[in-house]
Structures are given as structure tokens and as C-alpha cells.
């Protein structure tokens, strides 16, 4: 399993999850968990996904989701889970 965290920040709108999930399904990426919250007036969504079977190279995969995010009008980050594991766990 290769865990990647997709985090989305922006104004809440129709279809954020649907459009992201559709892209992930086409890219053969499995969604492990989704959570969402509102912090300081901003909509935050986090997806934990498994990219082990994703056919697209990581850089391209990330670029495509980020482009999709700008189409929807939200800020998207795609990061390998290690950064959070390292930073927040002893």
C-alpha cells in the first residue's frame, strides 16, 4: 500500500467529492478514508488514498488533481503520507 493524502481547502460547493472521486476511480486509486471539517470559515476535506495500483506517475497524478481543483475553484495538495507520520508521531 502506498498512502497519499489529498487535502482540499476552499469554499464549499457542489461536486467537490464527486468530481475528485471520479478522477481517482479512473486513475485506479482506492479511497481509504474521507473526512471533512470547517476551520476559520474554510471548507477542509482530507482523503487518504492508496496509489499502489495507480498507473499514472506520482508527479503527473498530483498535477492532474491540482488542475481539477483549480477547475472547481479549490486549493488541492497531494502529499505522501510519510510527511504527516514523521511530523506527528514519535
Amino acid at each position, binding site marked *: 500500500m502506498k498512502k497519499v*493524502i489529498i*487535502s482540499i*481547502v476552499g469554499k464549499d460547493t457542489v461536486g467537490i467529492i464527486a468530481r475528485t472521486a471520479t478522477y481517482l476511480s479512473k486513475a485506479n486509486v482506492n479511497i481509504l*478514508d474521507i*473526512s*471533512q*471539517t470547517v*476551520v476559520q470559515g474554510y471548507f*477542509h476535506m*482530507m482523503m*487518504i488514498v492508496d496509489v499502489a495500483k495507480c498507473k499514472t506517475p*506520482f*508527479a503527473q497524478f*498530483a498535477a492532474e488533481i491540482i488542475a481539477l481543483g483549480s477547475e472547481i475553484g479549490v486549493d488541492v*495538495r*497531494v*502529499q*505522501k*503520507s*510519510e*510527511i*504527516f*507520520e*514523521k*511530523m*506527528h*508521531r*514519535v
Partner: protein
Amino acid sequence: MIISQEEVIETNTMVREENLDVRTITIGVSLLDCADADLKKTCDNIYAKLMRVAKDLVKTGEDIAGEIGVPIVNKRISITPAAIVGSACCKKPKDFVKIAKTLDKAAAKLGVNFIGGYSATVQKDMTKADELLMRSIPEAMAATSRLCASVNVGSTKTGINMDAVRLMGEIVKEAAELTKDRDSIGCAKIVVLCNAPDDNPFMAGAFHGVSEGDAVINVGVSGPGVVHHVLKNLHGADFETLCETIKRTAFKITRVGQLVAQEASKRLGIPFGIIDLSLAPTPAVGDSVADILREIGLEHPGAPGTTAALALLNDQVKKGGVMASSYVGGLSGAFIPVSEDQGMIDAVDAGALTIEKLEAMTCVCSVGLDMIAIPGDTPAASIAGIIADEAAIGMVNQKTTAVRVIPVAGKNVGDRVEFGGLLGYAPVMRVSPFDCSAMVNRKGRIPAPIHSFKN
């Protein structure tokens, strides 16, 4: 292990709003095997080796930054002190300048922003080659843009080489004169050290010591903005809470560096050396060590209490960072440059911060008097005196100290100097007008302090 959304938001807020970054991945490269009796052959060997060892550095850094979502600002190279590499083939200062140009050319070709190690380690005495290299520094700095020079003039074990200190006073003046059309920027790339570490990834003092292997990855972390941010919620909190919070934050920042270092090491096939846990400010608003000192409770850095606040900060950064990394080295602490930190510049402008107070602060920070513009007519002997004072602090306190001052040609106290980019801008600061030349002109070295004899 489940990652919580709060943790993801916290990390990304650090990057997005608090300027969290990895300041540098620095590859240390040994050039000992490039030395030849022929100058051209030596230069060719150096160029070829750097191209071979560091060819993937910039791309690897960018790849890792893209994958973890944390910027890696600089990719750099440090080399074996050039005085050693060129000792067999350089017969005059101009020969060393040829090596300098070769290094600069390689750095430009590889896309790294600085290459450090145009250096001599003369803490006890100078070889002929050391002296030639030191004398070549002004011309080398004027003729290159990415090369950094450093000279280690003292150590706790050897004392202070006052002949080298005196010479460096003159060299700094000469470098200022040779680059006077660019606000004497040559001096921004020259640092004079005491107790220089062999594995420092930060410029201008980075070099690859002779105790190191063939190549090594050292990573410098940063993050003053992150520390500043967490302290905003702690007004009036006691010292225990303050210190614990800084420590926890330093731990998180350092873990990012550790991850980057391990990944870079794996991908480049070069061993991981150390993490340098430094709070390195930049001129960007919100990326300031001075802001942290203010948040601790000072009106401006330089106010009474500044040394204590800085001591506390430096110590907590180390305590948090040490546990986050398997190997810690380099300078590791809070940097207090003037021109690279907006809060420090403001403190000077407000009349709160003087060179004398900065000197006191260097007793407890990680390095020394850094990026300080001084009047262009400051005598070489006074610059040597400033270097000697800093070296004495380092020697007696068994810590690294350094001097990077810029005697800006044609400028006086109250004038402003613009260096640009990461180097920032600086108000010209007052230097004591009283003379120290009779002391500086004494020959020889100051003996090592009594507490260095530990055998």
C-alpha cells in the same frame, strides 16, 4: 496508523502561512582525489567530479519537495577546503582564482545556488597554500557569483591564530573595495569562523571537512515563522509552557528535515550525514527570529533580557530537534543575521540593537555576527578586532562563532544597503571608533584556554 485531519491541516498551515520549508539539501563532496601538480588538470578533475556526484541533486530535491508538499528552498554543494585541494598546483593567488572560477562554473551548470568550501582551516597556523588562498579571496569573490569563502581562524583546542585574524581584516576590506559597485557584496560571501564544524550545510561557512567521507548529504531545516506562530497563543504563559511548546515545534520541524535527508540519501545513493536544526530567518515577513524574541516578551531584540530569551530559544530548539533526528550536527540553533531578518532590521532602525549587544547574543546563539553592514571606512584593524572578539567567545565557550560583516564602500552609519534576494537589505551600523591596531598587530597566536586540556 490513521492520520487525523487536524494533523494534516496543522502541517499544511505551517507551509502555507508560516513559511515552513527545508532550507537546504547540501551535498558534501570530497575533492581530495582531484588534486594534481598541474593546475588545469586539477580544475578539470574538480569539474568532472562535481558533475558526476551532484548531477541529480537539483532534480531530486524538486521531486521530494513535490511529493511531500514542503518546499526545499536551496540545493547546495560543499567541498573539501580549496586550500588543501590546490596546495600542490597553486603557486600564486591567481592560480586559486582559476579554481574559484571552475567551482562557480560547475555550480551554475548544476543549478545549485551556492557552493561553499573556498576555505582554509588555519586555526593554528597557515601553510603557504592557505595564505595564497586567503589572499585570493577578494578577487575570487569579485569574479564569481555562487562561490562562498570561509576561513577558520581559531578553535578551543588550538587557540586563535592572530596572524590569520589580522590578514582576514585586510581581506574583508579588500573584498569590499573590489565589489564596491555592488554595495561590497563580495563580503556577504566571506565568513571568518572559530570552531567551524566539518558538516555545516549552511552558507557561507559550509565546507566538507577532511574527516568526512567521499560524499555526504547534510540537510538544514528552518522554520522561525512556525515557532513564532505557536507562541502567539502563549502570552503570559510560564517558562515551562513556553519552553515545552518551542521544543515540540522544533521536533516537528526537524522531522521534516530528517524525512527529506533520508529520501535524498536513498535516491542519490549518498550516505546521510547530519541534520542541522537551525532557525534560519529570511527577509520575508513572518520568517524572523526577531519576531520570536518579541513574542517571548521583548519590545525589540536588543532590549535588556534579549540574551536570556535567545539562550532559552536556542536550547529548546536543540532539545526538540535532537530527538527528531538520528544525527545532528552543523551549527544547530538560532541564526541572528541582521540583513536577512526584517525584525532585526527594524530593531536596528529603532536604535534598540547595536553590534555590542549582538556580540553578547552570539555567546548563546548558534553562530555569530552575521550579515552586518558597517561603515566603509572602518579600519582593517578594527574588523580584525571584531573577528578576534568573536573567536575568543567561541574558543572559551567551546562553540562555533563567526563574523560576516560588510564594510560597505562609501557608506556610513544611517545609510542603507541593498543586497537583494535571500541576503536582504541592511542599515549600516556603528562600529566603536576606538583603535585596537597595537593589539591586532602583535604576531603569533593566542594560546588555547585552560579548559581545553581534557586529555
